[in-house]
């Protein structure tokens, strides 16, 4: 019990984070309007919501250049579809018109030519507050939608990989600076092998997520390329080991290489992508805001951190199993 409490913790954390990561509903949002172009005159607009409960008593507002106008008639088709009959005023000032239904807003929902001289503002009234999906929800972000859940699956792969590479370099330094060189070398190798496994999973899951949000499996983004280069650097660590037969010589050389490899990992994953001159699609890099500035709110954090802790512990467990298996194999062959 004393020695495997953290393995139990890994399983409990992963179970809790995975169940919550899949089960917690997404907050309601307005996701689509048709048509999405406004011109003066009467228009019929179909609004599509996600996880919404549309009701006719919900106040509907169009807002353009600071002034509001409202639909003449609202017909709720079902909980997620609403038809708006609106007389669009002449003189829309701004090109983008925002839509608000109840407490849900859709900024920049409509495009028009704009450049008008304004229109008499209307008072759309307060109506009754809209019913919302109660309780604990994840933020519903445009483009991401349900895929925001991948935060709890894709991102912890990288945290686990970095933790494993960190543990590996720690063993390498210990092995270089003291006794037990071979034992430390074994642990360093196992951590890199399992770390690369997580790296591969991180690249593949990231690629799938990119396809759903950016429309492509791979793009020449600084964060993506940095991750790929890091993977190659650690693959070279394995190649280097394979080229040396003397175990002590191999342990020393591999350990020295490992120190440089980890320094490059930090450089490629954390320093280069954050340079201001470099733009990146990936959240948290370049001029791009991370989820934490924008919407990694406490609702996501409460699931995300246990997921990270769980996957890091799981990775350490896997590395430990590898070390033990390798140690046994070496003892049996001797």
């Amino acid at each position: 019990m004393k020695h495997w409490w953290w393995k139990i913790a890994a399983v409990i954390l992963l179970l809790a984070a995975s169940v919550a990561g899949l089960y917690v509903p997404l907050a309601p949002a307005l996701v689509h309007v048709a048509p999405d172009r406004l011109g003066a005159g009467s228009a019929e607009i179909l609004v599509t919501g996600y996880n919404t409960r549309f009701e006719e008593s919900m106040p509907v507002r169009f807002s353009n250049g600071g002034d509001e106008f409202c639909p003449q008639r609202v017909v709720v088709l079902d909980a997620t579809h609403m038809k708006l009959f609106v007389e669009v005023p002449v003189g829309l000032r701004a090109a983008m018109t925002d839509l608000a239904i109840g407490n849900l807003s859709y900024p920049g929902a409509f495009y028009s030519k704009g450049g008008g001289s304004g229109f008499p503002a209307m008072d759309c009234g307060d109506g009754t507050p809209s019913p919302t999906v109660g309780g604990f929800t994840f933020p519903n972000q445009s483009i991401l939608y349900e895929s925001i859940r991948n935060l709890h699956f894709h991102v912890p792969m990288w945290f686990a990989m970095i933790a494993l590479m960190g543990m590996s370099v720690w063993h390498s330094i210990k092995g270089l600076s003291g006794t037990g060189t071979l034992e430390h070398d074994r642990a360093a190798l196992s951590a890199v092998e399992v770390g690369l496994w997580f790296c591969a999973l991180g690249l593949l899951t990231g690629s799938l997520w990119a396809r759903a949000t950016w429309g492509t499996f791979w793009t020449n983004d600084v964060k993506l390329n940095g991750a790929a280069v890091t993977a190659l650097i650690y693959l070279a660590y394995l190649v280097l080991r394979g080229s040396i037969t003397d175990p002590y010589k191999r342990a020393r050389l591999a350990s020295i290489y490992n120190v440089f490899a980890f320094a490059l990992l930090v450089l490629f994953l954390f320093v280069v992508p954050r340079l201001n001159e470099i733009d990146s699609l990936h959240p948290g890099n370049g001029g791009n805001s991370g989820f934490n500035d924008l919407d990694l709110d406490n609702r996501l954090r409460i699931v995300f951190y246990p997921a990270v802790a769980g996957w890091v512990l799981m990775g350490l467990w896997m590395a430990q199993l590898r070390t033990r298996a390798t140690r046994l194999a070496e003892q049996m062959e001797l």
Partner: protein
Amino acid sequence: MSPFQLHTIALQAAPSWLEHSLHGNGKINVVVAVVGLIVLGLGLWMWRMDLRLKRMEEQQRK
């Protein structure tokens, strides 16, 4: 116009298959694929560890 007719119009105005899969499912498909991939990855790792242990067991028997 009855609500039913309106709904028919709504269905016509809306969306191609893409819109359906994106807005209807809210991109849950990619989450399923990601979780599936991770489970598959762990399974592969277990299988390799299994092979490794099996080799040792065979050697011990000799």
